């Protein structure tokens, strides 16, 4: 992992940590900020992916996959733009669902990494399972927006922790000289 990526991971960890604190201390205001950041992140990433596809990856064997990826991510970003207009309870369902989904993706990626005998898959599967498990307490508070917000904040703290650990962990890459 390059030093810039390490800095980016550390910065992401710190921002997520601050966000989760904001969610706990001021659930209403914090919720707006979280939505705004998620919307911007997904939209910019999706747009970047599309620009990359149309300028470079469309000439690449199997590059169409990147087009699909860009469209789905951009769609998710635009979808979040409209979340402000629906009741907060449902938005929390979406956010928690998104968190759990990212946990499932982590688990699938870790499983793939395990099959390929890549290192670090144990960390990834552990973080993925934790993300999914955060959904369990949410099932007991489906009618309480405040409780769901706190549970989501706990999920963000976990993600922030993951980012920070990734930023400072020694990583190995395979490069063939």
């Amino acid at each position, binding site marked *: 992992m390059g030093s810039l990526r390490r800095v980016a991971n550390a910065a992401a960890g710190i921002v997520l940590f601050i966000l989760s604190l904001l969610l706990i201390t001021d659930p209403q205001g914090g919720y707006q900020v979280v939505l705004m950041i998620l919307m911007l992140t997904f939209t910019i990433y999706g747009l970047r992916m599309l620009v990359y596809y149309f300028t470079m990856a469309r*000439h*690449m*064997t199997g590059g169409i996959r*990147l087009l699909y990826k860009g469209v789905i991510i951009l769609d998710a970003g635009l979808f979040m733009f409209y979340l402000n207009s629906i009741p907060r309870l449902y938005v929390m369902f979406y956010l928690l669902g998104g968190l759990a989904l990212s946990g499932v993706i982590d688990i699938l990626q870790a499983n793939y990494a395990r099959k390929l005998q890549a290192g670090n898959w144990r960390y990834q599967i552990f973080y993925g399972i934790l993300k999914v498990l955060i959904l369990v307490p949410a099932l007991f508070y489906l009618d309480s927006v405040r409780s769901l917000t706190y549970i989501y904040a706990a999920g963000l703290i976990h993600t922030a922790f993951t980012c920070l650990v990734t930023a400072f962990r020694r990583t190995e890459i*395979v*490069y063939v000289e």
Partner: protein
Amino acid sequence: MQEDFHYYATAAAALLAGYSPEESLEIGYASQYTDCCSRTVLKRLKGPKGAATTQSKTELADARTDLLGLQDITRIWSSFHFLPGDLYASLPHRGRRYMQKYRLICQPRSGLVKDTVQLAEGSGTVEAGLAMHVLADTWAHRCFAGTTSLVINGARDFYEIRTEDGVRKEQKISFNHNPITPDDVDRGNYTNSFRRDEENAIVNLGHGHAGHLPDYSFMRYRFMPAWGNYEIVEKDNPAEYYCAFCQMVNALRFLSGSEEDFDPEETGSPEAEKYRDRIMEILEKRQLLASEDWKSFWESLCGIPMEDFSQEKYEREYRESAPGDRDSTFLGRFFIAAMKQKSMVTNKIFRSGNLLAGLSVEYLNGGFKGIRDFRKLVELKERGKTDGKP
């Protein structure tokens, strides 16, 4: 390519080109040292950092992937391991950014190979050895680029091609990403870089996605490169390595003054042809490292025992020399040759309108600008003029 070809086979090629056994070992050493001379090694030796000819795994793991970091990576890998085949290649409907990367794809028999060999002309065994590394790698690394790029270096659908009882058979090659797992030739399981959908990720540098397949002389395989528009590329390593060997003999004969010119299109050599069966036997043997076979070939050519490659062989001489005398040591000459090569290739890439390797200012037009280490080249040039040398 690995130590077996860069040291042992290169030394054998030097013998066939007419060099003495001692000189051939120097050429082999300089060739293999190109895979050792990282910034970490240079720091330990207190050598010029600008002379780095490779990057260690640790350096790559922490390499910057911003503009300057990528230019540094491209300068090193394009100059010494993935010499661009056609800096002015054109394709329809491709953007500038795509074409800049596409033009860095390594191919043998290019004008830059000739420039590389000519750059070593009139110099000694060290410069010749470095040029032989660059030349040999153009064969093994063809179809990959010495820069980070998913759209160029991405590759998939690898199959090993074998001929059994005259029947062609293809076996799917499976990859794992565990760097400590040894490649399993019998089961067709090899290590490669994992895939990341990020254009400039370090894992997308060079032939990482093909693992060590280009480095094994016995390997015949096919795959689909990301830049190939779904066309399949077949690589017959034994045949291509033989071409590389012959071309090294020709280039070394030119450098020793036995030939008047070096033609990069010429891939046969009468000197090597006499030993073709023996050479092909070594190249086709299914083994991960052919050092012992090349060593016995070298010994059969000159009748004396061949010393093994040892990275430290000339390092002490450099470390213990007075700063003013270092440039005349073996490694001092190697570092200058490396900077010359890097400077030449960067300049060619820049002059083709491609900024991926950074800016290159011609001293005569713009004076000295840029990386301080390269000032040494200017000083040597000035000193050469004073001494009446070209």
